[in-house]
């Protein structure tokens, strides 16, 4: 197992390295941050000074090598937009907000999608199944910026039961989590519901389910212990990938709800062409994603002992 974890970690480093390289190239194609950040009235000398101070006047390969040598130490230099602040420290500061929102969304996906999927599978094409299918269709087809606004209109403007925006991580501020969490979870809920349904349908036709039933086990035990556990492997894979979707969705959702996490920070950094900040942000997000997927791979072994030796 130790060797396996080591190799997976080595692969992860290559992935993060690749991501940072791609982002570096794309950012450099998108224009001159000196022009954008300096006021319209700035003199040419001011703009040249700014470029020099931030290393933007050096050749691209040199900038790349410099960036990479610092990226190893998770240091991307100072933010161009928030002068005098380390890009990475800004990301670290905002990270807990995104972590809380992401975990909450993830919990919503698991807690809503699993029962919905099971209900659908137990009685396919019934009324309950059709309701679940409609929920899944809506969740998958509504863009998050639109769904976010609609939820605000319903729960904040019309019903006055939830706050319209802002973040809250503790105590009385916790209701702030609900609307952005739901918005972020919607596509995941849709995907996972359909997946649970199809997996359960497959498994419920298996012989061991029949065996379990014929042993006279309670239906609840048959479903939750025998069927669901066997249906879980592909579920865990997709749930792991959904963390990626949650991280990506955070950019739009956090901006709509003024939730000050790394997604909203990425949006601001992109708007200001703040290279170091974008790099630091993407770096943190890609490491999160890679670690989650590593965790998922290790989880396979727990769920299915046959995979343990891989």
């Amino acid at each position: 197992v130790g060797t396996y974890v080591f190799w997976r970690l080595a692969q992860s480093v290559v992935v993060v390295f690749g991501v940072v390289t791609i982002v570096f190239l794309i950012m450099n194609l998108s224009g001159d941050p000196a022009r954008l950040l300096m006021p319209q009235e700035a003199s040419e000398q001011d703009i040249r000074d700014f470029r020099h101070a931030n290393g933007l006047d050096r050749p691209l390969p040199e900038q790349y090598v410099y960036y990479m040598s610092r990226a190893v130490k998770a240091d991307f230099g100072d933010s161009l937009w928030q002068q005098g602040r380390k890009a990475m420290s800004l990301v670290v500061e905002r990270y807990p907000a995104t972590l809380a929102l992401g975990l909450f969304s993830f919990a919503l996906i698991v807690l809503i999608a699993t029962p919905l999927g099971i209900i659908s599978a137990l009685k396919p094409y019934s009324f309950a199944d059709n309701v679940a299918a409609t929920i899944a269709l809506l969740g998958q087809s509504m863009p998050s910026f639109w769904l976010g606004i609609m939820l605000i209109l319903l729960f904040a403007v019309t019903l006055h039961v939830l706050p319209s925006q802002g973040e809250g991580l503790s105590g009385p501020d916790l209701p702030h989590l609900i609307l952005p969490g739901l918005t972020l979870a919607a596509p995941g809920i849709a995907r996972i519901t359909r997946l649970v349904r199809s997996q359960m349908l497959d498994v419920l036709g298996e012989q061991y389910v029949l065996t379990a039933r014929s042993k006279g086990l309670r239906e609840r035990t048959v479903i939750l212990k025998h069927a669901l556990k066997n249906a879980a492997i592909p579920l865990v894979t997709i749930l792991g990938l959904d963390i990626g979707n949650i991280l990506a969705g955070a950019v739009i959702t956090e901006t709509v709800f003024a939730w000050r996490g790394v997604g909203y920070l990425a949006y601001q950094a992109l708007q200001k062409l703040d290279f170091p900040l974008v790099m630091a942000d993407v770096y943190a997000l890609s490491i999160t994603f890679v670690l989650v997927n590593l965790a998922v791979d290790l989880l396979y072994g727990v769920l299915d002992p046959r995979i343990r030796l891989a």
Partner: protein
Amino acid sequence: MNSAFGVRTSRRGLLRLIGASAGMAALGTVLNGCGALPFAGGGKPSELIMGYGVDQLSTTGLDPQIHSGTAAESQLRNCYDCLVQISKDLKTVEPQLATEWKRVDPLKMQFKLREGVKFHNGEDFDAEAVKFSIERPINPNTKPRSSIYATYANIIDHVDVVDKYTVNVVTKKPDPLILRRLSGFNMTIIAPKWAAAGGSDKIKVEAQGTGAYRIVEWGGPGGDVVMEANDKYWGQPATVKRVRVKIIPEQATRSAALRSKDIHVTHALWPEDEGAIGGSGVAITKKVASNRIPFYFFEVRKPPFDKKEVRQALNYGSNMEGIIKNVLQGNGTRTACITAPWHFGHNQELKPYPYDPQKAKDLLKQAGLADGFETNIWFIQGRYMKDKEVAEAIAQELGKIGVKVKPQLNDSTKNTQLDLAKQQDGMIFASWGNWMFDADNTYFPLFHSSARDTINDGKGQSSRPYGDPVFDKMLEDARVELDEGKRQALYDRAEAYFYDQAPVLTQYQLTDIYGISKLVNWDPRSDEMVWYREMSWA
């Protein structure tokens, strides 16, 4: 499959769902009751909450003297005063920390200072504070430096302390604009001992001014700014005792937050928000003509825009009134040139070019272009209300007089690159917010030959195409004329000349739409400033 199980579970699930929704609703009610949400039912809210769409404090923090962003200015001016201020109608200069002033000689303006004023930290306001504050931004050793100074403040040479409450502000050349210059955001008076001791790092994270509010909390970049009324304010004390400023970037969320009573005042709304906010019963919208004026430069260095007739023809043929009515839903005020009525030097006699397609065609014929021509319109999207839609409408309207216009939409970075590489022609989008409320501040930086010849390191750029010795002379004369009457006459002539030469496609003043809770009394201003001391609870 066991059907009984499925049905039972789904029913139970449904009941749980209903239970959960009811629970959530109850939770909301309870929270409202406890006052956990800002709006405990009935009575005045404990603080007034303003929602901004843009975050400008993150770049340079709270230092008022190096900012150039209007949204940052609009927040920090509540804490910092200048010697003088611009009146609410933006037409005259009024006392602020100076009570009276007189010109001692062409280079020297003398100010009597308000006595007994204290900074938020208890320091005395006096002549030394003025000298320190005005000389800080013009000192080349101050870091970080405000680049706006290179253009606007370097005419100020130094400040002389005459006595404890009298100062002379000395300029390098006679400066008719000195009062307006001193009303500028970067000319705010800051507590000198605090500033000298802490330096720029301190000024960036704290605010010690003489204004009606003091900042009691700033959550850092992107965070809320909380202000409390300054009890020792020299003027009428503010009636709203506590203000919280939040950043909510998404316009639809701002509008919803206002309707759900999560915020009390917000800005930069869209025409589409008006109905929803008006119909909500909890808030209203108020509109003002903005100080910000968009227009299109004609690239006069490339034919056929070197011909005056062509430029006039496009102004006659663009149907700007129709565009204001139909595209902007009335949210724009047509302009004859590119100054607002409250700007000093604005020519009140000029009438905007009317829509006259026949006249436009005649002018094109005179220019030898009876069959029209092909050109481009360069623009960006999303900076101002319906900018893209307006550009497309202009292209369509000009098609009717035989000018085939190709829309060239680019993101702002790409647009800037093309602009700097001088790769744009035809019509080029521009917009200007004149912060001195004086014609000089529009025409000199945009239309004097020196602007064309020095911009972009002397390499020039597409968006500074104009230069004309006749117009140059008019601007230069007005720049040093100290007599107001004579100066106005000079600008009347200059604007009439500009109107006839038509170096731009004129458009309109933008309309700013504010959303205001029914709990708040307030009339917004045209200069985008939000003074909380002008607000009160209804």
